[in-house]
């Protein structure tokens, strides 16, 4: 009966699938538009980033299809869950031991290929939380058996990512962990206790680490610091604002010509704003909202706690990261390096995001079966 179900629905929620495919294809196009001139100049080929992104997207789609075909319930296996955690930790440690790239320990570089362990860490974290929270579903309010182990393991993963100077991903991981714990029924006061020690740490980080304070000021008034700390944000706002309603037209943007740093990665949304205007950038937001709706719907129709938590965790992870990225581009939150899921250039990000979607799609397969 189960196998029959699979054959019938194939790739799960079609709207979710379509939204994902649309965002990825659109992303590939924007990566080309944002990087062509720079790629030509730096790598002597305007397709340098484009072709790598196409390759990654294809690999991502294959992975996604593969994941869709495998019942998510197979993941409900401590061997798989803990080896995922182990792998993530292994690579996170490895990346710290390797020489830094652009001042951060985010990438493991093998010639022609690079791997970002924090992406694996995010996936592993969600899978672990889903597994563990379902396992402890009966004793969810048990501090020692549930909350403390969860905090230790996820906190360890986040700490490792933070050591790699990837604050953005750390924040997303913390957010996803928080959401999954609250939804699973962990008492809010536990969370509060957990947040309390973070407050002085945050205070110290903001006001006593000189460059962070400067960044905060730059965030509050980027135009005042347009030449140094606020440069990126100012250039980003100029790009988005100059797009207007209709935009300058695909590939017609000028801010990507070295005015806008990270135009094809973390600030690709600014290029979208400039070239496609309010229409284009608002549609991107709406697509992520559509993704959110279908993702949450899949979670709510999951047959078990594990599936629900998986779908919820991945969905919140992708959507909150997207909103966070857009908020950085629009200077709604202080600048943090974090890619826009499906769209920003970056092989690891797109592959792991598509694997996550594959798992949600797989969960969504149960929508019909549950109704019948």
């Amino acid at each position, binding site marked *: 009966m189960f196998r029959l179900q699979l054959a019938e629905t194939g790739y799960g929620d079609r709207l979710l699938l379509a939204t994902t495919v649309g965002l990825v294809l659109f992303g590939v196009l924007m990566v080309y538009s944002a990087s062509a*001139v720079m790629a030509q100049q730096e790598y002597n080929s305007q397709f340098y980033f484009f072709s790598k992104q196409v390759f990654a997207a294809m690999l991502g789609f294959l992975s996604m299809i593969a994941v869709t075909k495998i019942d998510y319930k197979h993941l409900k296996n401590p061997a798989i869950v803990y080896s995922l955690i182990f792998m993530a930790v292994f690579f996170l440690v490895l990346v710290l031991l390797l020489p830094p790239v652009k001042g951060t320990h985010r990438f493991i570089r093998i010639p022609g290929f690079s791997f970002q362990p924090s992406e694996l860490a995010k996936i592993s974290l969600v899978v672990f939380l889903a597994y563990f929270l379902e396992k402890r*579903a*009966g004793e*969810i309010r048990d501090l020692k058996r549930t909350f403390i182990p969860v905090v230790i393991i996820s906190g360890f993963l986040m700490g490792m990512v933070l050591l790699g100077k990837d604050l953005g991903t750390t924040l997303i991981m913390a957010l996803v962990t928080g*959401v999954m714990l*609250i*939804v*699973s*029924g962990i008492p809010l006061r536990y969370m509060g206790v957990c947040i309390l020690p973070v407050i002085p740490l945050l205070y110290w980080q903001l006001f006593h680490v000189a460059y962070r304070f400067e960044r905060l000021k730059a965030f509050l008034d980027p135009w005042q610091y347009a030449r140094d700390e606020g440069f990126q944000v100012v250039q980003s*706002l*100029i*790009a*988005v*604002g*100059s*797009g*207007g*309603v209709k935009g300058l037209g695909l590939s017609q943007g*000028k*801010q990507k*010509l*070295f*005015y806008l740093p990270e135009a094809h990665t973390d600030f690709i949304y600014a290029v979208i*704003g400039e070239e496609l*205007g*309010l229409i284009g*950038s*608002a549609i991107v*937001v709406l697509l*992520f*909202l559509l993704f*959110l*709706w279908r993702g*949450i719907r899949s*979670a*709510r129709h*999951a047959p*078990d*706690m594990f599936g*629900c*938590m998986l779908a*919820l965790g991945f969905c*919140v992870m992708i*959507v*909150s990261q997207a*909103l966070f990225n*857009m*908020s950085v581009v*629009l200077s*709604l939150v202080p600048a943090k390096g974090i890619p826009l899921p499906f769209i920003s250039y970056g092989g690891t990000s797109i592959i792991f995001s598509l694997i996550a979607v594959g798992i949600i799609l797989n969960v969504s397969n149960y929508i019909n079966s*549950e*109704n019948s």
Partner: protein
Amino acid sequence: MIGKTPQAINPLSAVKKRTIFFCVVLALWAIGVEARLVQYQIFKHEQMANFAERQQQRTIKTTPKRGSIFDRKGRELARSLEVDSVYVAPNEIKDPDILAKSLSQILSLSEDLVLSRLTAKKVLVSLKRKITDEEAKILRSEIESKKITGIHFVTETKRFYPKDEVGAYVLGFVGIEEDGAAGVERQYDRHIQGRSGFVSVETDAHGRPFGRFEKQPEIGQSLVLTIDEQIQFRTEKALHEAVANVGAKGGTAIIMKPKTGEILAMANLPGFNPNLPITKGDELKNRRNRAVEDAYEPGSVFKVITYSAAIDSGLLKPTDQIDCQGGAITIAGHTIKDGGRYGTLTVGEAIEVSSNVAAIKTGRKLGKDLLLESIKNFGFGKPIGAGLPGESPGFVGGTKNWSEASFGALPIGYQVGVTPLQILAAVSVVANNGEWIQPHILKQIVSTTGDVVFQTEPEHRRVISKSTAEAMKTILEGVVVKGTAKKARLDGYSAAGKTGTAHKYDPATGRYAPTRYYASFCGFAPVNNPEIAVIVVIDEPRLGLHHGGQAAAPAFKQIAEMALRTLNIAPDEINSDYPESDKPLIIDEHLPIEDDFGMEEFNSPEIQEILAKYQSTNSLTETDNQLNLSSKNISTDKTGKNSKNVPELKGSALSNRESSDTKESRVAILTFSEGDGSLVMPDLRHQGMRTALQRCRELGLKVTFQGSGEVVEQFPAPGTAISPGAECKVVLQKIQ
């Protein structure tokens, strides 16, 4: 569905319910993002686009070429030339010290200044703008021979006034950025300035260009003025003489056509050369066009308005008699006197002698309201809109706080501030059958393609009836024939007008200066069909010559005669009652025929063609022809009669230029000599004294007349070779 089953109490359904909360939180976040997009892409779009443009584009403005300014006959009064400006790129300079020395010499700048520019910490710095062709030439050869680097030339435009001072106040001048600073240059700046172009280079953040837009500057439109350059030049010359003759500080003269409002000439003294830059602050003040920018109290000229109003209202008949009370009248405690102890005078006589008593009594008869209304109707108290900047509206005293004393001032031209042009327009009302017509300086605006894009349509309105105007014409002719302005009487033309002698107001003391005057005369000619109206205002003539009739009337005569002749207006009277007419009249003055304007008119291709034709028929050598082609050898004859030995040319070029001024068909005669600049005596027979005199003057001959009427005999005979300045004698006889 699940909720209704017993399983509903299991944790899963609670878990699923809680997902909604985060779904809503994320959706709200998304709305926040959308709101921010709207803020930046709609409300701040323009600002952001500006920022983007500012950092992405390097734009260099290219200045347009200003349109030319022409007189009514198409003579160029102002044009823009392309000149070089020198810029320095300090980074490219090798030996600043040595270079500074040679550059300072070539460009006549101080060495320190040049050195500071050569060593400036800038990419590009201006060294000297708008250098002369000479300087550019020397500098270029210097650069070439010494292989100097870092000196750059940029082409800019520079305004050039080929006639220097001529018409300077009308034309105005331009600033260093080629913006109109005064005169029509300023008034019509937006039409003639053209549109600046730009070269815009789009660059990436590293300053590398990736796109280039260029917009060529558009040449400005051209102005065609109502001014006649020839008349303008001669008016300035005549005014200059008049001012010198009476030792005055300065003066103003304006000529306009009373029927159309076209201003033919407008001159102020002292003059200025618009080609020269202003170096001191007070020079700017001296470049005020006093003909329209400064108000003065006109004095007796203003009586024209008082009497016109009184006659037009029916309160005074031209035949009425006015008791001048022995030449004194007391108004509000002030006694105002006349020049003589006049008894009862007719209206005409009262104006001829310029009686203050009669004018004041006439003003009283009109009453406050009618008097003030008439003054306003005649165009006082508001700017004329003649097409010149900075026009003074003038003022009319008593409009706000009338007092009885105003009757002692307004009717005789005190307590009113007027510009010379306002007076001219008011007196022209009489000349123009009672209609006020707006004086104007601009005839039309012509686009670069030659299309007329704007044509001045002067405002006009009836001020007094035609019969009033006729009556005033007769009265004002009397002023010239037997009144205060006998010196305004013209040779060959009837004229009418009114003198004015007004004390200058001394702002330092707050009183009228007892020994300083404005002497003025405003009139028109010929009386029955006025072709020109002229005002002459002389500022502070020497005491003893300070009356309008002494200081301004002779200038009027000179200017009006010159203008009428230049316009080829047929004389309307041979003044047989001239006291001089029976005596031999020696004309030894040289009229400004030898000015340099004669030449230009004859430089056109048509004329060259005509000359070539003449040359072949008369077998003159080319050199002869060219050597003798000076203006004084060329005259026009409008009678159409000519002797056979003088070549006849139905010269289209010559007569067409003037054809708008006269309906008579005219024939141009070129009178050539054979050799060293001597002339051929023209045939003056069967011509009137007026024409004969004019012909002789144009040729620079001294002429003696005998008798009156038509020329019956002349010495030397027609066709005889004579020299310039030769004396000739003409016998006239009245032929029935």
